[in-house]
């Protein structure tokens, strides 16, 4: 029945494209989480009045984060071509999209991490200090656990942004559902292919949002 409605859709190609999109999203979300968390912590900790207060370092990190967050993603991909060639060796395929995805998303997530950490009651950090906690203990036993719900909802938003970034990366040769919608759908005037690709991207986004919401609710004990 499906084949009679979507005459131009080759389902094995769609499956392959979906896998590519999921692959790009999953890897980039993972790396973005780690990198963004580290950057966000650095931003927070070096801010005035915090554990590693350092005006110089703080403004350097802030500038890097702001610059990469402000460059439109499609331009970032182009700017990063030499870097990507150096790291991955090619500009084609899902792997080649990863550097740009991560460089684009990590600063975005870092800001969310910083905001989440700033929400933590300073009194709790003071309490940990008064117990003789080291800075490492404060980071791993106070800062991260106390901001977990915000960190999770932040990575959910970032993951959804990354799915749409993968679609853009697809247009410049990274594969995936975005590539399929553009090359097979738009360029060849196959509206049904565009529709199927769009619906699949929507499903991925909804699933990510649903999982993220469930986790955030379960983790929030406030």
């Amino acid at each position: 029945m499906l084949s009679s409605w979507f005459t131009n859709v080759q389902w094995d190609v769609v499956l392959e494209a979906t896998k590519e999109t999921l692959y790009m999203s999953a890897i980039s979300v993972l790396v973005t989480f780690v990198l963004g968390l580290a950057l966000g912590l650095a931003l927070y900790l070096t801010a005035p009045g915090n554990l590693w207060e350092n005006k110089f370092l703080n403004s350097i990190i802030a500038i890097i984060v702001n610059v990469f967050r402000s460059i439109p993603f499609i331009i970032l991909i182009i700017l990063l071509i030499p870097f990507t060639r150096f790291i991955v060796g090619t500009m084609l395929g899902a792997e080649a999209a990863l550097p740009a995805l991560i460089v684009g998303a990590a600063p975005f997530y870092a800001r969310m991490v910083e905001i989440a950490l700033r929400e933590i009651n300073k009194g709790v950090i003071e309490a940990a200090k008064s117990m003789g906690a080291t800075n490492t203990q404060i980071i791993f036993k106070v800062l991260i656990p106390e901001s977990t719900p915000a960190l999770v909802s932040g990575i959910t938003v970032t993951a959804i942004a990354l799915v749409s970034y993968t679609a853009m990366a697809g247009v410049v040769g990274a594969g995936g559902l975005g590539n399929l919608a553009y090359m097979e759908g738009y360029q060849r005037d196959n509206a049904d292919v565009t529709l199927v690709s769009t619906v699949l991207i929507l499903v991925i986004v909804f699933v990510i949002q649903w999982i993220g919401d469930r986790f955030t609710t379960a983790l929030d004990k406030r």
Partner: protein
Amino acid sequence: MIPQESRTLHSNQLVNEEPLSDNFLKRGFNITNYVLGNEVSSLINLHSVRKVFQTKDGEVKAVDTVDLNIKQGEIYGIIGYSGAGKSTLIRILNMLERPTSGTVTIGGKNMSELSSKKLREARQEISMIFQHFNLLWSRTVRENIAFPLEIAGYPKDKIKKRVDELIDLVGLEGRGGSYPSQLSGGQKQRVGIARALANNPKVLLCDEATSALDPKTTDSILDLLVEINQKLGLTIVLITHEMHVIRKICHRVAVMEKGKVVEEGDVLNVFKNPKESITKDFVKQVTEPEETVDTIKQFIEEFPEGRIVQLTFVGGRAGQPLITELIRNFEVDVNILQGKITQTQNGPYGTLFIQIKGSEAALSNAMEFLNSVQVEVEVIHNA
């Protein structure tokens, strides 16, 4: 992180096979010494401590040349209005705030000269509880109490045992699995206290610990503090703006105003004989409810005969039947207008407003008697 020696030391304390109560009794001995008035050396010593904050509007002297001696095993209160510098002062004790100058010595250690590692070790012996509890909302009651033990590097099984003891000690049986958001204010502060006691500290700092609680809960938390002071021999330093707290649990008090300690002494002495006007105001918070002044004033307008006298009883006298003696021995009528007996940790303290009527001779005899019995007499109105 934690050196091996100190870990074993802590573990030894924790696996101590004696039941906790025996420990309590042994330590309680110190307290008995204190109560009996024997010389106990000072545990905390502040010498010309100053803390100056640089702000856009210039220098702010939060703490201005403060000297304090706090003895082992006592409950020491610091009272002042907000902005008096007491909050900064208590944070200087555990170096959450570094003093601009002066020295802080606790248990013989000069706190501002400790390396950061030594300071962290010292902080495990100087616990703190807070006005807003500062519990980790992501952890259950049990996990919150376990937190300082994790920091000190205890093994899991010992943490479990110690947490059980502490939950019993602060009366939170059955609430171990709850999250802070599911507890009342008083219960949260109990968790705060249990958490503060986990590492067997020598000193407990209380930062407005009852200011966010209702009067009834305040009293139950204060009772708990007295209980742990007596059972564990723990030295408690607290700051507050409520004289009620000082009156109820403190042995000694310091009054702070604009960064300076303006008055200091045994609680009962300060109640009996406040010198500074700020101290008098604080004492009135407890001894003279606001309506007293109005009541007496109105009474004088309506019944201007005789004498209106304010009697202040201190210590043992507060319990004696003074008025009975007065009426039996002198030809006077006594009319009690208002009275109140206040318990402090050093003994009772009472104020009584009476009207005495009678012949001039009888009145002066009665006054003479009152003056002779170690009761402070103040004639408020003389018709």
